[in-house]
């Protein structure tokens, strides 16, 4: 009876241990590079980037979402990133790894401009 209890009790523990091992195998090794960096949202709405200007730390991922019914693009002036044409509700993301000021605009509507400042905080 006692043995049975012990055996039964051991099962979930073993199962847990196994899960932990699997977890480590899948996630632990590449965690340094693969775990999604912190994300910040920028909306494209009413033919403007909102916020138009944003300051983030290196490693930040910015996700732009087109909230308009008109296609827009997110295109950097130094060619370091460029989206395809984004239809309504389409998203584009880019991770900023190095410090600097990155200006961008919409190639369909070049009066739409924005800038990402990447600074160590």
């Amino acid at each position, binding site marked *: 009876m006692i043995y049975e209890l012990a055996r039964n009790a051991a099962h979930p523990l073993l199962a847990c241990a196994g899960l932990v091992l699997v977890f480590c195998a899948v996630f632990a090794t590449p965690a340094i590079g693969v775990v999604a960096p912190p994300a910040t949202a920028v909306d494209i709405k*009413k*033919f*403007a980037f909102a916020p138009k200007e944003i300051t983030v730390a290196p490693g930040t991922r910015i996700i732009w979402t087109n909230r*308009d*019914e*008109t*296609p827009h*693009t997110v295109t950097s*002036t130094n060619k370091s990133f460029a989206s*395809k*044409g984004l*239809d*309504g509700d389409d998203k584009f993301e880019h991770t900023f790894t190095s410090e600097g000021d990155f*200006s*961008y*605009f919409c*190639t*369909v*509507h*070049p*009066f739409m*401009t924005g800038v990402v400042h990447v600074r160590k905080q």
Partner: protein
Amino acid sequence: MSTNDPTGPGHKPARRQALNCLATWTGAAVVWTVAGGVPRALGATREGTPAAAAKNALTFVQISDTHIGFHKEANPDVVGSLRRAIADIHALPQTPAFVVHTGDVSHLSKPEEFAQARDVLQEIRVDRVHTIPGEHDTIDDGVNGYLKFFDHDGKGKSWYSFDQGGVHFIGLNNVLNFKMGTMAALGDEQITWLKGSLARVSHSTPIVVLAHIPLWTVWEPWGWGTADSAQAMALLRPFGSVTVLNGHIHQVLQKVEGHIALQTERSLAYPLHTPGQVGIGEPGPVKVPAGELGKLLGTRQLSVVRGQHDLALIDKPLEA
């Protein structure tokens, strides 16, 4: 309602005449007639009967901004709107020689959108449909995707000229050279080509220019203008009769500058707001109640009558 005839008898357009904002949310097709020099508007067709063009007139039709691929609430059936316009063109009392499409053929520059647009445009029973690209046709790969379906002369260029009925036609691409914070431009290469092309045309030859974005600054905050249009206008100014046909702004506007008459055309997809209105800060698609949309989309028939200075044009809504 017809567009005004700014160069009619007794009219002496002042240079830099103020925008003649016709902004009628009711017209639709414009029939251009060239008879003798300059395109003249034939008159309104809202009542259903277009004014007859002279028998020797060259008549053609302008359509614009079909935005094939658009499927939002402002118009869930842009292909249906285009087909209604095609039916209107086929019902014209005088068969047009050809159709011009002043850009934004597609909505997102997708190959399937260009393919569908080409197929539907081929349903028009005219010799040819001359197209020029709009900024919606050059989104991901410049003008290359558009040219795979609409290469006018097979030369890999998006600008061209041709002569028909005594008129010199020029198709331009003013949706290249987008730079941050500026309006679109024709660019030096195209300006140089235009100069060379016009050098071979006599100043008495009527000129019709097709360009997607207006060749004058309608509203800079929305990019409704062409950064280097002054260079193109300088090349056109010596000619006695110049008509510039634009699209882009999804409404009828007109400006006259000397012998140059500039006209924008309605869309066949969805209307846009008139610029400069308080509280309307962006040129997004305007949603209108069911039954109203057809009044805001349309086509234009034009006739050129030899010996007359102006082109005749009729703006006709899809739905009166």
